[in-house]
C-alpha cells in the first residue's frame, strides 16, 4: 500500500525523524492560513501517489501567503502528469504547505528489502534529488549499500558508515547518524516495504531533514497497522481494481481488448503472455484465486465487462481442488445471469474436466471451448478481431 507524502511525514515525525514544518490543505483558504502560520515563505506541493511532481509543475515556491493561496488554487483539481503517472495523470486533491528552507546539500537515503540477501538494505547517495535508478545505472559506485540484520537492527557503526559516505561532518554528521537510526526504526516498526527520502536535506544551518518522503507498506502486514490502513486514498487507485478487491479478486486493468479470467497469479500472467504471442493484447490481469465459484465468476465477468475496450474474454482455469464440473456450472450460471455481450472462450483443465466440458456444451450458450492454452489464445484473439 502507498501513502501520500504528508502522511509518510506524519509517520516519520512519530519516530522522531526530522521533517520540515508542514500543513496539509484542501482549499486555497486553508493554504493561506497554513502559509501565514509557517511564516509566509513556503513550498506548495501537490499530493499524488507518484514521483517526479516537480517537473510536472506540482511543486512551487511561494514568497507570501497570498501567493501560496494562488498556487493552491491552480494546483487543486489539476491533472498532474509525471513520468510515474502515465499519460492519463492524476488529479490533485490536496496540497502540502511546507516551510521553505535554506538548502545546502540534497542527498539520497532509501531503505528497502534486498531479496538476494534476505535483508533490509540502506542505500545512500550524495546525488540527491535525482532518480536513484538513474544514478544506479550510470554510476553504481555512487550508492553506498548497508545491509541490516533483521534481528539486531541497524548498528551505530552502520549509521556512521552511511553518514560518512554522504560526505558529512560536524553537526550534520551527528544529525544524519541519528536520522538513519530513527528512519530504520520507522521502517521496521510500520512493516514498510520502502522508505525513500529524496532529497535528504542538509540546511545551511546544519540541520538534516526529510524534504520529500515516499513510503510503501507490506500489504500482508496491514492487519497490524490500522493507522496506516486509514491513510489509504482510494482516489489514487483504479475504481475497478478497488471493487475487484472487495470480492477477493486480484484485478489489474491494462490497455488491450482481450479480457481474461484465470486461477492463480502465475497462470494469469502466462495467459496474458500467450494472448500477446497469439497476436492480441490483454485487457487485464485477473486472478480469481483458488475457488472459482459461480459468485466469483459472476463478479469477475462484471468487472471485466465494465472495461468497454473488452471485445472477447478468455477463461482459463486449471482446476485443482476446485472441480471442473463446478467451475463449468459457475460459468454457465454467470453467463445466463449477465448475458454474453462479447464472445467467451473457455479452457478448462484438471479435475473432472470432461464433465465440465459437457456441462458447457449442454448449456446451449455460445461459449467457445478450447483445448490447451495455445488453442484458447488463438480462438480468443480471433474472436476479439470479430473472426469467431
Amino acid at each position, binding site marked *: 500500500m502507498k501513502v501520500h507524502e504528508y502522511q509518510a511525514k506524519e509517520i516519520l515525525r512519530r519516530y522522531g525523524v526530522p521533517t520540515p514544518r508542514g500543513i496539509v490543505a484542501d482549499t486555497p483558504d486553508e493554504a493561506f492560513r497554513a502559509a501565514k502560520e509557517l511564516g509566509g515563505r513556503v513550498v506548495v506541493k501537490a499530493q499524488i501517489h507518484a514521483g517526479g511532481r516537480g517537473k510536472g509543475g506540482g511543486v512551487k515556491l511561494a514568497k507570501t501567503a497570498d501567493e501560496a493561496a494562488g498556487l493552491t488554487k491552480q494546483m487543486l483539481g489539476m491533472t498532474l502528469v509525471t513520468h*510515474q503517472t502515465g499519460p492519463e495523470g492524476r488529479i490533485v486533491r490536496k496540497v502540502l504547505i511546507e516551510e521553505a528552507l535554506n538548502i545546502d546539500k540534497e542527498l539520497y537515503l532509501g531503505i528497502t*528489502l534486498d*531479496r*538476494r540477501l*534476505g*535483508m*533490509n538494505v540502506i542505500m545512500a547517495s550524495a546525488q540527491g534529488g535525482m532518480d*536513484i*535508478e538513474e544514478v*544506479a*545505472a550510470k554510476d553504481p559506485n555512487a550508492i553506498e549499500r548497508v545491509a541490516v*540484520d*533483521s*534481528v539486531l537492527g541497524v548498528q551505530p557503526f552502520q549509521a556512521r558508515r552511511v553518514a560518512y559516505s554522504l560526505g558529512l561532518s560536524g553537526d550534520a554528521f551527528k544529525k544524519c547518524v541519528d536520522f538513519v537510526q530513527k528512519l530504520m526504526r520507522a521502517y*521496521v516498526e510500520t*512493516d514498510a*516495504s520502502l522508505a525513500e527520502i529524496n532529497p535528504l536535506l542538509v540546511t545551511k544551518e546544519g540541520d538534516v531533514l526529510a524534504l520529500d518522503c515516499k513510503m510503501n507498506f*507490506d*500489504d*500482508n*502486514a496491514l*492487519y*497490524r497497522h490500522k493507522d496506516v490502513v486509514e491513510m489509504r486514498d482510494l482516489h489514487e487507485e483504479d475504481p475497478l481494481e478497488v471493487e475487484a478487491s472487495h470480492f477477493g479478486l*486480484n484485478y*489489474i486493468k*491494462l490497455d488491450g481488448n482481450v479480457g481474461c479470467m*484465470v*486461477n*492463480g*497469479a*502465475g*497462470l*494469469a*500472467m*502466462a*495467459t*496474458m*503472455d*500467450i*494472448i*500477446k*504471442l497469439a497476436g492480441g493484447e*490483454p485487457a487485464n*490481469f485477473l*486472478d480469481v484465486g483458488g475457488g472459482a465459484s459461480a459468485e466469483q465468476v459472476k463478479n469477475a465477468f462484471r468487472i471485466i465487462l465494465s472495461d468497454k475496450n473488452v471485445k472477447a474474454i478468455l477463461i482459463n482455469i*486449471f*482446476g*485443482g*481442488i476446485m472441480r471442473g464440473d463446478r467451475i463449468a456450472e459457475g460459468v454457465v450460471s454467470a453467463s445466463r445471469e449477465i448475458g454474453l455481450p462479447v464472445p467467451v472462450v473457455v479452457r478448462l*483443465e*484438471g*479435475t473432472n474436466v470432461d464433465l465440465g466440458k459437457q456441462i458447457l456444451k449442454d448449456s446451449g450458450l455460445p461459449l467457445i471451448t478450447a483445448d*490447451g*492454452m*495455445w488453442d484458447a*489464445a488463438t480462438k480468443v484473439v480471433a474472436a476479439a478481431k470479430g473472426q469467431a
Partner: protein
Amino acid sequence: MAIWVDKSTRVIVQGITGREGTFHAKGCRDYGTNVVGGVTPGKGGTTHEDFPVFDTVRDAREKAGANCSLIFVPPAFAADAVMEACDAGIELIVCITEGIPVNDMMKAHDFLKKTNARRVTANETPSRLIGPNCPGIITPGQAKIGIMPGHIHKPGPIGIVSRSGTLTYEAVGQTRDIGQSTAVGIGGDPLPGTNFIDCLAAFQADPATEAIIMIGEIGGTAEEDAAVYVKAFVTKPVVAFIAGQTAPPGRRMGHAGAIISGGTGTAAEKMNALAAAGIHVVKAPSDMGKRIVEVMGSA
C-alpha cells in the same frame, strides 16, 4: 528415487483442525501420503478425522515419528509455526500459508539459519523450508505434501520447479505422457525458503530425474542466479518459461514477489540470462511439454 519426499516421509499437518488443514490432510492421506497426525495447540490428545492431534510439533515428532510438516496456520501465526517445526527437528517444512508479513519471514529465516548451523555442527539433519505461499511438493505415486491435484501426476523422469502454483499444474499437465520425478512449488513470496538453485542441485543429483522444467516469473533475481548455477553445475537439459512477459512495470502481479521495479526483474532480462546459460527458454507457456520431449530426444 526422487527429491526430498517419498513413501518413507512421515507427515504431520500444523493447523490440522482448521478447514484448509482438515481438507488437505485428508487429500494427502487419500493420495497415499503417510500422514501420521496433526498439531493444534490446545487440542492435543484428541483425534480429528482419525488423525491423532498433538499440542506441539515436538510431541508429534516424538510420539508419531514425524519428519515432515505441512503448514496451514493462518498468516499472522505461520512464521511462528515454521520456527516451531524447525525447533522440533523436522527435516522438511512445507508452508502453504499465503500472506505472511515479510518481517515475520525474515525472523523465521534467521531462526532457521541459526538452528541449522547448530544442528550441522552436531551432525544432525538441518531443516529445509519450502514456501511459504506455495502449493507444496509431490513425488508422484509416493507422497503428495501440499494442495496440488494428485491425480494429474504420473511417475516419470521430469523434475519440475516453479514459483507459481497453477503454472506448475500446467507443466504437469503438459508432461502427462512421460511423467514427473518430483514437482516442487517454491512459492510466490519475495523470500522463499527453498529457491531454484536448491531444487536444480537436487534434481541434478537425483538419478530418477532426466530433465528439468523451471518456471519463473517477473520480480527479483532468482532466475538470473539460477542461470549462473545451471551453466556451472547442471548437465541435465533444462527447459524454462518466465511468466509476466507482458506485465507492466510497477504493478504487483498477484504474488508479493512478482513486480518489476526500477527497471529490473523483467521477463526479458531473465529469459536472456537463462538462454545465455544454455537453458531452453520457451516463449509460450503451452510449449513447455513439447520442448522437454524434444530436448530429451536429442540428448
